[in-house]
């Protein structure tokens, strides 16, 4: 049975703003909200199909590049809308969008799937977020804290 909320952070914390997904997920994990699991995902999009198999609702946080203004946040309900996919892929590069589309085809998407992208500035080697990205990430943590807490109050059983 599908249960609870899964928060997935995609990215590499050692490549600047690429680490914004894991950064957000770590902070939400520290809040220890009931019924909320977290996961860092690195490179294998296909592994996500497995990871969200038992989750009721999934939030995926990932860095964007050349899709918006730096620090801008885009939120996509992936059950209603497709993400743009790369025209080529391999098992080295089977990304989030491909995993979602394959999951859609195979009927292996969770009951809720929200993808949240944050436009980055710098993807060079090294740890740490750009100021605009960190500000956006902090805002998202607050938004999600409220959103997840509200869910707990509204329907506590749904998050068990």
């Amino acid at each position, binding site marked *: 049975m599908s249960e609870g909320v899964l928060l997935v952070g995609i990215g590499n914390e050692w490549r600047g703003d690429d680490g914004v997904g894991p950064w957000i997920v770590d902070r939400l994990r520290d809040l220890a909200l009931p019924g909320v699991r977290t996961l860092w995902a690195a490179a*294998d999009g296909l592994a996500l199909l497995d990871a969200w198999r038992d989750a009721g609702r999934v939030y995926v946080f990932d860095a964007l590049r050349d899709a918006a203004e730096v620090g801008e946040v885009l939120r996509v309900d992936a059950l209603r809308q497709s993400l743009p996919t790369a025209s080529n*892929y391999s098992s080295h590069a089977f990304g989030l969008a491909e995993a979602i589309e394959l999951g859609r*085809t195979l009927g292996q998407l969770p009951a809720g799937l929200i993808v949240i992208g944050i436009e980055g500035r710098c993807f060079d080697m090294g740890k740490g977020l750009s100021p605009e990205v960190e500000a956006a990430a902090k805002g998202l943590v607050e938004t999600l804290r409220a959103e997840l807490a509200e869910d707990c109050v509204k329907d506590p059983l749904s998050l068990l």
Partner: protein
Amino acid sequence: MPTRTINVDYIARVEGEAALHVSFDGDTISKVELNIFEPPRFFEALLRGRQFTEAVDITSRICGICPIAYMLSAAQAMENACGVRVEGPIRELRRLIYCGEWIESHVLHVAMLNLPDFLGYADAMSMAKDHPEPVQTALRIKSIGNRILQLLGGREIHPINVRVGGFYKLPPVERFMALRGEIDWAIAATRRLLELLAGLHYPDLVTTHELFALRHPDEYPFNEGRLASTGGIDVGIEDYERVLGEHHVAHSTALHSRRVDLADAGTICLGPAARFALNRERLSPLARAAVTEYGLEEAWRNPYRYIQIRTVEVLFALEESARIIDAYRPFDRPWVEVVPRAGTGYGCTEAPRGSCFHRYRIDDQGLILEAKIAPPTAANQAAIEGELRRFLEGNGQRPDDELRHGCERLIRNFDPCISCAAHFLQFNIDRRGGVRP
């Protein structure tokens, strides 16, 4: 003189980036070059001056799909340099983690990258709409490979628990046993996959490459054996470079391999077909039975049938995993102490794509003085070019789109991992002298 150029910007469903340049001069093909433009990665140079214990984790980074091959070849080479042999349960667990890597890599290639060619789809995504079952099955089998790597390696991509001498620590026995039910399911599922593959159409093709792989007297090789070939080579791995050598070609950042002990030797090929050709008598019982049932004894001669051989190897890896887990008993200290000494060590294990050879020279403090790494895909480049040339020679009158698709399909049979080799695919055809479809 009319010239015709066809460009394919990229060959999909292979690992990495390369281009194929084809020139026709009249009816004759004047050039077939697989141009690998992945940037060189300089691993051999950056290993120099590092501690012998670091090579395992550094070389792991060569490939996200087959890190275990690099880690275990490096570990074995360092142990060899220091006069240590790793036996018993540690050796068994090294085979188990290798099973995970083969399962993960092979099943992805079979179902997601290669099967669409046989069923007539552009990719796995479109194939899954009409044929969801093999994709679902493959993803579930793949997750077993992932779980084995997580269990023993700490994580599935670039594992962190492998060291010179063995492993840093081992998980509790219950976590091994938790995999058993799923492995039994996967064994049955892989047999169904073989049945599906048996019903596909395979173009006729017989290759003449000399196939090289490790050969072991008692087991289907992952982690140990002598270097053998279908041409009669049978040497210890310390003699690898007396037999096979890499040489630079101007059109590729991957080095090509060839026999260095024979001036007029033909092309060579590593990988599942080579392992199968040289070791199939030592497959596990159900894998061996499948070879007989589906008439695969000679499948290693036809690259289009490599998909079946990979699937037989998945079945083998699953049976081997079950055997190792069933025999597993907890033990103390999962590593052997390895004290550095000055010398040269050799390691060679069987990556999913073929023999992965390492040689290191270290000093008495364990500092690496010299490193040599021969990844399997590089070794296969000349063989792939040879097959492309044969294909194009027989099909020059066909439309460019057909040629492009045919070339891509042929290349995918070999499952090249360009990222490892670089050191794929823009497709250019020049037609001079009026050969036009």
